Structures are given as structure tokens and as C-alpha cells.
């Protein structure tokens, strides 16, 4: 069903529409915060809290913006509050690789590549990491990212370019090129 119809039905209290609306966003939101925090449990907590808050404020959502944009904005507020509470840098040792069959050689390799990527992302400054992941995970346009982060489009572009350059340099340093 189309997203705008789902939103209307969910706002009217249709439980199935609510679930369907959020079900589509759950993997993206979790994937985004997993890469943002490099901590599977924290990412899950932020994702669930963001979805609950979004559900409770669904009446205030206006479809001028994409639902995913609105949801990730709420998620970033939750993330900011969580960080304020924890006052700690993202942990790298609890990276959730998401790999299933660990015995398969290619799954191990893929897991290692993901871990390398997670470590490289964790090393990026937070604002650059946000921009890179909003582009990478969601594929948002520069204008949409600027709207979410409340900064000019030029800043988004330069942060993305800086993050790509940093990641590329780090990949070269690690011999991943």
C-alpha cells in the first residue's frame, strides 16, 4: 500500500497500517543507528524509542516531508539524548555484524569487511558520520539531509566530501584499497 495512504490510516488509529508503516522503516533505521553507534544494543534501543515517539506524535506528521526523513529526525533526537545520558564515545567492540552462517568462509570475510567499515565509520567525527550514513543508508538528497540536520546544503556537501576522503584515506592505510 502507498505510504501516504498508510499514514492516513495509521493516524486514524488503524493498528495494521501503523505496523506496516513502521515495518518498512525498521531495517533502515536500525541499520543507520547500527552504523552510527557501532553498538547493536544501543542501536536497537534508539530505534525502538524513536519508533515509539514517532507513533505517539504521528498526528503531528505532515506528508510534505518523506516519512523516513521525519522518522530519522526523531531518531537523531533520541540518539542525542542517549549520548547526553551516556556521555561516552561509540563502542567498537560490540559491532553487530549481522552475519548468519559464521562457518561459511565468505560470510566471515563479509563480516570482517563490515567490521572494518564500522571501525572506519566510528573514527569519523560525528557530524560527518551522520551525513555519510544518511546518504549511504537512506540515499537522501543533500537538501533532505540539510533539512534533517538543520544546516546549509553546502555544509552537507562538504561534510560528505570530507567523510569520503577520510574513509578512502583510512581504507588505503588499512590496505583495503
Amino acid at each position, binding site marked *: 500500500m502507498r505510504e501516504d495512504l498508510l499514514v492516513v490510516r495509521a493516524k486514524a*488509529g488503524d493498528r495494521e497500517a501503523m505496523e506496516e508503516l*513502521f515495518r518498512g522503516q525498521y531495517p533502515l533505521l*536500525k541499520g543507520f543507528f547500527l552504523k552510527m553507534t557501532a553498538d547493536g544494543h544501543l542501536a536497537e534501543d534508539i530505534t*525502538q524509542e524513536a519508533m515509539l515517539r514517532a507513533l505517539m506524535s504521528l*498526528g503531528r506528521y505532515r506528508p510534505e516531508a518523506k516519512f523516513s526523513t521525519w522518522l530519522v529526525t526523531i531518531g537523531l533526537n533520541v540518539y542525542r539524548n542517549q549520548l547526553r545520558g551516556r556521555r561516552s564515545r561509540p563502542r567498537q567492540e560490540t559491532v553487530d555484524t549481522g552475519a548468519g552462517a559464521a562457518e561459511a568462509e565468505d560470510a566471515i570475510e563479509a563480516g570482517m569487511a563490515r567490521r572494518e*567499515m564500522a571501525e572506519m565509520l566510528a573514527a569519523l567525527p560525528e557530524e560527518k558520520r551522520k551525513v555519510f550514513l544518511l546518504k*549511504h*543508508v537512506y540515499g537522501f538528497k543533500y537538501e533532505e539531509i540539510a533539512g534533517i540536520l538543520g544546516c546549509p546544503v553546502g555544509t552537507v*556537501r562538504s561534510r560528505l*566530501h570530507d567523510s569520503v576522503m577520510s574513509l578512502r584515506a583510512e581504507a588505503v592505510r588499512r590496505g583495503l584499497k
Partner: protein
Amino acid sequence: MILDCERVREAAIDLACGEEPAGSGRAGIEEHLERCPACRDFQREVMLLFASGAESPDLDWRRFHATMERGARQLAARARLEAGFFAALACAAASVLWLGLGAVHSALPVYLYLGIAANLSLFFLPAYLSHRRREV
């Protein structure tokens, strides 16, 4: 040559993430990429960077359903609370009016209070419904 490469690499990042490159035309960029192996490598690396790590994470569907359940319950509770608030507002206004009238006329009948409350409820009903409609 150096400036050209810089500009092309900036454009390569924009192109890799589906944006229109600022300033430079696509034809010029493609022409440069054809004759510059270093920039071609750069473009390939950037594209790989954007293609990497796009797998779906492990999802806790049980917790997802619990969150949806909790949200639906809280929404229903909030709707009841709002309806109660509007009803209480109507009753409070009716009581104030009744007490005011009671000060002027002694021994007012109870049905007058009920009449005032009913009329005020009718007055508050559109306000409540428009509030609900704004939410939807």
C-alpha cells in the same frame, strides 16, 4: 591538471551518491575520467565505498511488535484522556455557571444543572472534534 583532477573527484563523489555535480558538466567529467586512470580508480573506490555494508541488520521483531503494541495502547489512553479533559472542562464550566446562578436564585433544580452541562458539552464537542481532526 591537478585542479582538473580535484574538480573531477569532487564530481565523482556527487555522482556516486546520485547527486548532480556542482559546476562541472557531465561530458567534461567523463572525458577526464577516460584519459585519467588515477581519477578512474578514485571513482571506482568511491562507488565501492557507497556500495559496501548495505546488508540488513539483525532485527528484533518481537520487540518491534511490543513497541507497536505499547504505542497503540498509549495512543488509546491519550485519546481517552483528551475526551475526559474536554468533558471535565464542560462540567467545570457548567458548575461555575450553576453556582453563579445559585447565588442569585436560591434552590435551583438539578435538571437545570444538567441542562447547562448538556448545552456546554454541545458547545465543546466541535472544539474536541476539530482537535481530533487536526491530529488525523
